[in-house]
C-alpha cells in the first residue's frame, strides 16, 4: 500500500474538496507558492479565484471569509503560524461564531481555519510555538486536532463540509507522520467522534494530535507493566464524552497528555468531566505545558516545557500505583 504523509493528506483533502465543490476556495499567505506545502499544486489546478494569495492582513481576510461564507461560499483559510489565531480571535470567536445565533438562524458561516504546523516548531521560539486549541473549545468553536494521515484527510473534509466555523490544528509534530493508506478508503471522519487508538484495560491515556504517537510509544514501552488504552478524541470540541466514558469504564484510571497550558486547558476539561461523572480507582493526572508557558528558544528548554514521554510514563505509573 502507498504511504501517505499527514501533510500530504491535508493537501489531498483540500484538492478533493476544491474539485468536488465549486463553492470551496482557499485563501492565505504564500499559498500560491505553497510555502507550507498545504496547498502544493492547487494554484495551477484551480487558479487565482480558488486559491487566493492574501496580503498580510489577517483580520480583514478572516472577516472577508466570513462575508464570503454569508454570501454562499465555503472558504478555507490557511494560517502560517498558530499565533495568528490570537490576532484574529475576535474575528472568529466574536464574529464568525456568533452570526448564526445572533441572526436567529438566518445564516451560516462555513469557514475552515487550518494551521499546518501548530505547537512548537523547532527553533521558532516564544511567539510562534503556541497550541491554542483549548481557547477555541472554550469559546465554542468546533475544534479538531487530527493525529493520523487518514484522520487528517477525513477530518479536514468534514470541517469543510460543516456549516459552522471549524478550526483545524495540524501539529508540527504530526505533519511528517506517514502511514500505509489504501486511497480508496479515505473518507470523511465525523466531527465529535473519538477513537480508541490502542485497546487496553488498566489505564486510559487521552492524547491528541502528535501526542497520540507518543502515547502509543509509551504504551508499547510499558506493555510489560500495564495494559494501556489510548483514546484519541480527534475533536477537542465537541468532545466525545461517551466514547471517553466507555473507555474509562473499562480501565477506571485516567491520564491526559495535552500540549496546551495546564490551567483551563483541554486536559482540565477532561478531568472536570471525570470528576463529575467517572468512577475512578485513582485520581486522574494531567501531563501538559506548564501554566502560562512561553516556549524558550534554546532547544532543551523548549522541549522541557512541552509534555513529553517521560512525563507521561511518570503519570501513568503514578495512577497505576495509587491504591
Amino acid at each position: 500500500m502507498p504511504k501517505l504523509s499527514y501533510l500530504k493528506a491535508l493537501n489531498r483533502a483540500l484538492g478533493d474538496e476544491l474539485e468536488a465543490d465549486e463553492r470551496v476556495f482557499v485563501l492565505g499567505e504564500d499559498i500560491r507558492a505553497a510555502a507550507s506545502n498545504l496547498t502544493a499544486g492547487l494554484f495551477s489546478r484551480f487558479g487565482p479565484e480558488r486559491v487566493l494569495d492574501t496580503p498580510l492582513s489577517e483580520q480583514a481576510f478572516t472577516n472577508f471569509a466570513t462575508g464570503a461564507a454569508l454570501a454562499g461560499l465555503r472558504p478555507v483559510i490557511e494560517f502560517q503560524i498558530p499565533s495568528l489565531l490570537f490576532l484574529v480571535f475576535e474575528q472568529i470567536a466574536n464574529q464568525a461564531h456568533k452570526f448564526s445565533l445572533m441572526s436567529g438562524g438566518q445564516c451560516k458561516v462555513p469557514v475552515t481555519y487550518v494551521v499546518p504546523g501548530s505547537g512548537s516548531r523547532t527553533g521558532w521560539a516564544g511567539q510562534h510555538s503556541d497550541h491554542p486549541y483549548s481557547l477555541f473549545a472554550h469559546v465554542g468553536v468546533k475544534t479538531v486536532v487530527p493525529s493520523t494521515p487518514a484522520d487528517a484527510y477525513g477530518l479536514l473534509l468534514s470541517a469543510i463540509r460543516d456549516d459552522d466555523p471549524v478550526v483545524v490544528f495540524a501539529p508540527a509534530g504530526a505533519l511528517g507522520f506517514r502511514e500505509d493508506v489504501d486511497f480508496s478508503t479515505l473518507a470523511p471522519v465525523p466531527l465529535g467522534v473519538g477513537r480508541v487508538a490502542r485497546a487496553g484495560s488498566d489505564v486510559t491515556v487521552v492524547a491528541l494530535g502528535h501526542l497520540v504517537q507518543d502515547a502509543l510509544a509509551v504504551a508499547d514501552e510499558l506493555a510489560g507493566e500495564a495494559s494501556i488504552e489510548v483514546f484519541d478524541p480527534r475533536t477537542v470540541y465537541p468532545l466525545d464524552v461517551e466514547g471517553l466514558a466507555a473507555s474509562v469504564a473499562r480501565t477506571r484510571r485516567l491520564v491526559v497528555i495535552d500540549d496546551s497550558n495546564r490551567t483551563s486547558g483541554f486536559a482540565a476539561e477532561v478531568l472536570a468531566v471525570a470528576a463529575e461523572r467517572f468512577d475512578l480507582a485513582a485520581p486522574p493526572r494531567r501531563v501538559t505545558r506548564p501554566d502560562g508557558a512561553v516556549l524558550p528558544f534554546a532547544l532543551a528548554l523548549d522541549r522541557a516545557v512541552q509534555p513529553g514521554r517521560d512525563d507521561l510514563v511518570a503519570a501513568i505509573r503514578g495512577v497505576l500505583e495509587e491504591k
Partner: protein
Amino acid sequence: MTVDLYRTVRLIRRFEERAIEFVRSGEIVGGIHPYVGQEAIAAGVCAALRADDLITSTHRGHGHVLAKGVNPARMFAELMGRESGLNKGRGGSMHAADFGLGILGANAIVGAAGSIATGAAWAQRRLGRSSVAVTFFGDGAVNEGMLLEAFNLAALWRVPVLFVCENNGYATTMPVDSAVAGSITGRAKAFGIPAFTIDGQDPEKVLAATTAAVDRARAGKGPTFLECTTYRFDAHHTFEHRARLNYRTAEELAAGWSRDPVEIQGARLTAGDRAAVDAEVEALLDAAAGIALGSAHPDPAAALQYLYASPEVFH
C-alpha cells in the same frame, strides 16, 4: 424619488423617536444608539441600491435597515426581543439583520463589518451575480486597523463594495479632530480608492453620489469611498439621557439641528404631499408598534436555538 426619499427620512426619524419612547417606557430593554439627524445618509444610499444588493450596518443601524426595506413591525419586535422580530429577538438593536433583503446584519464591533462586506461582495461577483455591497461605519471606525486592511483588499481585488463613512463629528465623546490624523477621505485615497466628501444631510446629494459609485462598482471598476458629513442630534446611546456627558455645547447642537434632513427633504414637497406622507408614516408605525407589542416573547428554553448551523455533531 423626492417623495420616496422624504418618506424614508421621515420613517426613520419617527421610528427612532418612538424607539426612544419605548426605551423610556421599558419596552425596549438596554437602550439604542439613535440615528436621529443622520437619516439622509441611509435614505440616500439605500435608494441607489437594488433589492439584491447587500449592506452591513453598525451599532447605530436602525436607519440602514429601515431604508433597505425591512418591515418596521419586525424591527420594533426585534428591539423588543420578540419571536416575530427580524432575528427572532436574538439579535436586538445592534444586530438587526434580514438576509432576504440583503441585510447582513449590524455589527457591534466598530470597524468589523467593512471586511465582511468586502468578502460578501467579492463572493457575489465570483458567483456570477452583479450585486454590490455597501458597508456603513462612523468616523471612529477609520481608526480601526481592520477597516483599513479591508480598504486594501477591496482596492487590490477591485471588489464591488462601497464604503460609506458617516462623519457625525464624534466617536461617542471623542471629537473627530482629536482622533483622526490626516483626513478621512485621505485614508481611502491612500489605497487608491476614489473618495469624496458629500453633504450627508441632503438625501438627494447622497443618492446621486451613491448612484455614481454603485455604477462604477457594477462596471467592475472597484470600490468607492463616501464621507458623508452629518451630525448626531441625539445621544450616543440612550444611556446618555440619564448620565449627561459633557462634550458638546448647546450652540453646537442647535447648529446641528439647523440642518435637519427631514426639513431639508420635506421642503421639497408641497405641504399637502408632506402631510400625506407624514400621516402614512404615522399609520404605518402605529400598526407596526401595535404588532410588535402584541407579539410573543421567545421561549427561554430555546435560548440556544440557532447556536450552531450544524448541531448534529453534538451527539
